[in-house]
């Protein structure tokens, strides 16, 4: 399991961990039922405090991405990928609507917006 932590990022470290594990699960790289490292081992490997990985795992559990069995460790939970995709799409739609509204305010055309999106997407 590859996780890269940035100490200079504005995003708190526990969020960096949850987001990366989430994407690994959503991308299918971590399959359902796979054991993930214990939070203490992960803390050691990432050279961060235990409480940070603990918080990351708690958030992942709350969101239903992983589950823990006392004495055995944590595992990737069963994912209803369709539902998650649907949810994500909805969020994206909302965000794009906001972008469009903002663009209209300053008179940015659709082509210009597409161009901007293209540049950012390929960055």
């Amino acid at each position, binding site marked *: 399991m590859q996780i890269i932590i940035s100490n200079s990022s504005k995003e708190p470290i526990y969020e960096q961990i949850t987001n990366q594990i989430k994407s690994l699960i959503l991308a299918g790289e971590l399959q359902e039922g796979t054991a993930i490292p214990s939070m*203490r*081992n992960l*803390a*050691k490997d990432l050279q961060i405090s235990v409480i940070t990985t603990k918080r990351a795992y708690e958030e992942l559990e709350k969101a239903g991405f992983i589950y823990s069995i006392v004495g055995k460790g944590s595992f990737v939970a069963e994912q209803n990928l369709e539902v998650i995709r649907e949810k994500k799409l909805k969020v994206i739609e909302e965000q794009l609507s906001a972008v469009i509204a903002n663009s209209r305010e300053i008179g940015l055309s659709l082509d210009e917006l597409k161009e901007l999106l293209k540049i950012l997407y390929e960055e």
Partner: protein
Amino acid sequence: MENVVELKNVTKRFKGFSVNHINLQVKRGFVTGFIGANGAGKSTTIKTMMNLLRPDAGEVKLFGLDYKTHEKEIKQRIGFVYDGNIFFEGLNLKDIKRIVAPAYKRWDDTIFYQYVEQFELPLNKAIKTFSKGMQMKASLAIALSHQAELIIMDEPTAGLDPIFRRELLDLLQELMVDGNRTIFFSTHITTDLDRIADYIAFIQKGELVFNQSIHDVAENYALVKGELNLLDRDTEKAFVHVHRASTGFEALTDNIKAAKNIFGDTVIIERASLEDIMYYFKGGIHHA
């Protein structure tokens, strides 16, 4: 039992110095970093935990036990590392081990020699010929060889070079993989804590300012920067201390939400490092 160490209302007065009403809990399985300026009361608090001094008032409990009735049981479960060598200077490590080992029921020679090898410590040279780093390693090897549940360290990194400091942090992190170990250590080098501390206890002028998880510290404390004209008697209440310069002000808040409500987008709010927090508290607490 969640708390390995529990200090309740601990007060100890000396001539010209005192620690007052310290309430401090150290949580099992985590690393608590104990910060404060020199002379703030860190060593006195640690000595209270080790029963090297008895408080004038208050209660001290380790593993839920009282020193009055369970002193030996408690100390069997503690490994200690102090700032500076406390072992007989003229003796070599082998002889020191011979003196210390029989005191512990669960002493394990195999573990001890493993650390001696890992730390590259000479067994037959007098301790007084050791460098500061080697003395620290020797103390650590002894502290870790009797399956202690609680490791108490007073300024273990003081006077050590950066490379060895990192090695020490690596080692402590390895110890934490076993969830039963608890580490409590004092330091005034706050960067040591950024990496491994789960909880931060901060002492200032003999009083405990806070004992919070690193997340709570990050969510409560922040630096606020803005123009001087934003400051007045009311808005200043959001701050622990304000530093004024002709170019603007910089202040520490212990309530990010309140600061956001008051100032909105007119100021810059940034993460406060432990050093920032210590520095601003030194200026004194402004509001009641």
